[in-house]
């Protein structure tokens, strides 16, 4: 095939500033082996990464973690993002972020804040977060975000313990003045995978939740934007692997490794380059990990000849490896996958056992 096409430019950079976090959410998407504080990139390196990202075409940087507020240089990092011309989005638990720091971030040019909530029921929320008083702190800080005039998204991760309270959680988001809500069913990687049996909802719960989200969207149309991430173990087709492997986004870990997605380190054999040794554009264009599943040449059947191959890109490579044992296989969530029955079995393997909290 003869074709000369420019490689599409990435839109988003997920900057995992630290893996440190005061909360212990059992669905955390961080890896089980967390990067240590001493290994974290310094301010100057992040600033360089942001400039390189902007030059590459990246528009938005998502400042995430762990809890980004665990970094003392957070406002300098925000300022560096702004100076690089990036749109900055702070993804925070709100615990450990003081109103003073928040005001400094707003001054430094922060564009948007996303606060996670665990439940509308405070006792349940604190239990899920593994932190007494987390819920009330979140509400107070959310109000502060709105008071400063920053746009606020409330993110709620949905699972068996809170799936029945989507409506009150959306009401809570409205009451604190959020302009957007993200309803994210748990994706099973990292700590969430470890807690899958406890977190997994039933199909019936998921069906009710999907209908409820539709109802809430209609009810609050024009008042609040409701985005939902589908619960993929119960889907017919897989989610489109972060918009295509090495196509729309990149992820920098606290220690500086550059990954196509936050979970990519679970796939054995991939070599990840680091921003300590290479420029971001060199990594994007040439690193073996980014090339590994870019495009469609790596595909096997049933993906290879599938009409949806350019739409969902074979689904999630990490999930293909985690469930089917082969990162080149179709995502087993897809009903066309020969391993699809395993997903149904895993979804049915629910057990009411205590959470295995994320810990550093």
């Amino acid at each position: 095939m003869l074709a000369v096409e420019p490689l599409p430019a990435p839109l988003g950079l997920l900057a995992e500033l630290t893996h440190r976090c005061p909360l212990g959410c059992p669905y955390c998407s961080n890896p089980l082996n967390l990067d240590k504080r001493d290994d974290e990139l310094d301010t100057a390196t992040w600033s360089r990464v942001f400039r390189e990202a902007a030059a590459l075409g990246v528009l938005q940087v998502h400042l995430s973690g762990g809890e980004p507020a665990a970094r003392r240089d957070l406002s300098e990092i925000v300022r560096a993002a702004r100076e690089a011309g990036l749109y900055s989005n702070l993804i925070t638990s709100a615990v450990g972020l003081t109103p003073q720091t928040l005001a400094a971030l707003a001054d430094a040019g922060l564009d948007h804040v996303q606060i996670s909530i665990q439940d509308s029921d405070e006792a349940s929320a604190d239990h899920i977060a593994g932190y007494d008083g987390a819920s009330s702190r979140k509400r107070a800080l959310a109000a502060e975000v709105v008071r400063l005039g920053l746009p606020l998204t409330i993110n709620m991760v949905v699972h068996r313990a809170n799936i029945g309270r989507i409506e009150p959680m959306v009401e809570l988001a409205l009451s604190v003045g959020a302009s957007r809500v993200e309803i994210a069913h748990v994706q099973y990687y990292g700590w969430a995978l470890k807690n899958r049996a406890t977190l997994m909802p039933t199909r019936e719960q998921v069906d009710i939740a999907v209908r409820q989200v539709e109802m809430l969207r209609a009810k609050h149309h024009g008042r609040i934007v409701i985005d939902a991430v589908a619960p993929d173990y119960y889907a017919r087709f897989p989610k489109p692997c972060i918009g295509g492997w090495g196509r729309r986004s990149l992820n920098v870990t606290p220690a500086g490794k550059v990954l196509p997605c936050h979970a990519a380190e679970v796939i054995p054999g991939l070599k990840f380059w680091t921003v300590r040794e290479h420029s971001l554009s060199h990594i994007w264009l040439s690193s073996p990990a980014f090339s590994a599943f870019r495009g469609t040449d790596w595909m096997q059947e049933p993906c290879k000849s599938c009409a949806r191959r350019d739409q969902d890109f074979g689904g999630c490579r990490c999930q293909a490896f985690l469930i089917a044992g082969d990162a080149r296989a179709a995502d087993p969530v897809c009903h066309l996958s020969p391993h699809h029955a395993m997903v149904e079995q895993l979804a049915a393997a629910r057990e009411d056992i205590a959470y295995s909290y994320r810990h550093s």
Partner: protein
Amino acid sequence: MSEQPATVISSDAQPRLPRGVRLVQNEAQGGWLLLAPERVFKADAISAEILKRCTGEVTLDAIVDDLAKAFAAPRERIHADVVKLLGSLADKKLLEL
């Protein structure tokens, strides 16, 4: 954007992009973009012309007049397009009135 916007915009409204919504030009991504919380929208040339005028200091009427003059197009048609675009953006919390 075929759906009718829920937000109705009066002729003396002074639309503006709220904090957290920015119109930028980016060659690597091929033109005008509206950056918003967790979202990026591609703005075609005409939409960009409309959005550039949403400064919070100009009324809808004045924006429409200005565009009708700039593009030598019928005022009613421009008005209909502008109201539809801005209404749908307001629905998505991407515009303040």
